[in-house]
């Protein structure tokens, strides 16, 4: 990846800070999405869990996460292999000591990533909704924000070995991901998949013959409104990421906004059409996942795509998200109510690979070897991050059991864990009428 941008004016700093301040809207959007796609009897739990995730992620990242992640050009541990430097982890002080928190690029990167790590940690929350206990959620978030995210983000954004694939091995511009398709979205999505494997499906999700039973989200208005809020947040996240980690000039942000919107729009429409063909009617929750998937895929290289390429990337994303939601649920028995594995992991991985094909087209051509660099980054996500996330959560599950007991699940997470429901005046649940 190109070196961080030169910061020549107060205007550049202000613009970047403004873009960063939009990112909490993405966090709020994902919280609403999680809430709407879950059961009504777990709605308050979902929102409180989101707030706890944000709190734990911000504190743990500031306390220890940033010290592993660092920033390009700052102190890091480097191992020499075959005479070549492998920068594998940063060496910054804990609790942000000694960091110039004054509008410098490193300070802006810290602010952006305090929000970004919350987004990454909220993705597993949607995957394991309706059965994941609050204490376990907080513990898993601490591990994600304190280790998994910072380690991989250092490799991509902190001057680590993936970022230097271009300089050292001549592979394009190194692993390209300016907006967090890998560091935030794929890491979150793969952690979500690992957590779903650990907690298992919700009770009643599969019949004894293994057929999935539809458990619709309780509030699709929240889901769609969450998608629209997330759009605003993503515009900020992609813009700030392009400036901080891609070296984009403020004038390039116009293209970032256009591409982000086009990619999400094309993806949502592709998901609408795909579900219309597959099920006879458009599916609102899968289409919402298509929209989020489009935003995720746009993050990889939004400042380096032509608008036509952004639409193509979006169309493929929508198709992939819609089909993968069905495959995971029907054939692979992955009960992921929020569609996290599809809209964050699958879309993120596709966005990263597409960056290797399209990034630079129309701007002087794709750098030679860029697709190999992208494939190496994707291989690292699947071959290293996924096993590590599974292993860490497996160990945590032994210490703090993740899954609520059977009575608690039937009663609902709200009453079981919080002692009060989100909608006390509406206590009737559709499965109350199912004969047990």
């Amino acid at each position: 990846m190109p070196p961080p941008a030169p910061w020549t004016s107060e205007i550049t700093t202000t613009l970047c800070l403004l873009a960063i301040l939009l990112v909490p809207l993405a966090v709020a959007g994902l919280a609403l999405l999680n809430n709407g796609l879950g059961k009504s009897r777990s709605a308050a739990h979902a929102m409180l869990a989101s707030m706890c995730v944000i709190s734990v992620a911000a504190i743990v990242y500031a306390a220890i996460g940033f010290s592993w992640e660092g920033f390009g050009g700052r102190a890091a541990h480097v191992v020499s292999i075959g005479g070549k430097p492998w920068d594998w982890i940063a060496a910054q002080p804990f609790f942000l000591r000694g960091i110039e928190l004054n509008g410098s690029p490193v300070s802006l990167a810290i602010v952006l990533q305090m929000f970004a790590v919350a987004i990454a940690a909220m993705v597993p929350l949607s995957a394991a909704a309706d059965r994941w206990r609050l204490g376990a959620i907080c513990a898993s978030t601490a591990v994600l924000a304190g280790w998994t995210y910072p380690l991989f983000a250092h490799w991509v954004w902190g001057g680590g070995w993936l970022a230097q694939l271009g300089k050292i091995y001549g592979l394009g511009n190194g692993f390209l991901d300016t907006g967090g398709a890998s560091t935030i979205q794929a890491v979150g999505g793969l952690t979500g998949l690992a957590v779903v494997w650990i907690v298992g499906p919700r009770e009643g999700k599969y019949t004894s013959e293994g057929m999935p039973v539809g458990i619709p989200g309780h509030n699709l208005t929240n889901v769609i409104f969450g998608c629209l809020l997330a759009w605003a947040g993503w515009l900020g996240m992609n813009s700030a990421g392009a400036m901080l980690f891609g070296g984009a000039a403020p004038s390039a942000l116009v293209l970032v906004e256009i591409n982000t919107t086009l990619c999400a729009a094309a993806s949502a429409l592709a998901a609408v059409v795909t579900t219309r063909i597959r099920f006879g009617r458009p599916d609102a929750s899968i289409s919402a996942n298509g929209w989020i998937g489009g935003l995720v895929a746009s993050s990889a290289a939004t400042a380096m795509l032509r608008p036509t390429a952004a639409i193509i990337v979006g169309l493929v994303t929508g198709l992939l998200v819609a089909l993968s939601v069905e495959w995971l649920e029907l054939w692979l028995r992955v009960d992921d109510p929020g569609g996290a594995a599809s809209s964050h992991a699958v879309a993120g991985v596709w966005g990263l690979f597409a960056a290797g094909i399209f990034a630079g087209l129309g701007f002087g051509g794709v750098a030679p070897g860029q697709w190999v660099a992208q494939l190496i980054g994707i291989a690292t996500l699947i071959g290293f991050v996924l096993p590590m996330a599974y292993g860490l959560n497996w160990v945590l599950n032994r210490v703090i059991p993740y899954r609520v007991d059977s009575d608690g699940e039937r009663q609902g997470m709200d009453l079981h864990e919080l002692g009060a429901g989100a909608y006390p005046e509406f206590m009737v649940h559709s499965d109350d009428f199912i004969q047990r």
Partner: protein
Amino acid sequence: MKVVGFLLLLAGWLLVLAALEMLAAATPRALFVVVGFAIEVLGLVLVFRSHLAVAEVES
């Protein structure tokens, strides 16, 4: 089966890393990376299959 799947994931990734160090020419290196990635896909299939087997026993 799950452990073997995860070991295959790691093995595929190590193969990708080895390609970077051991091969200098672009085409063999790219091929090696693709092979490493293919091994990861195989590992992913195994992990999914083991998850399916557990789900079938539980149901």
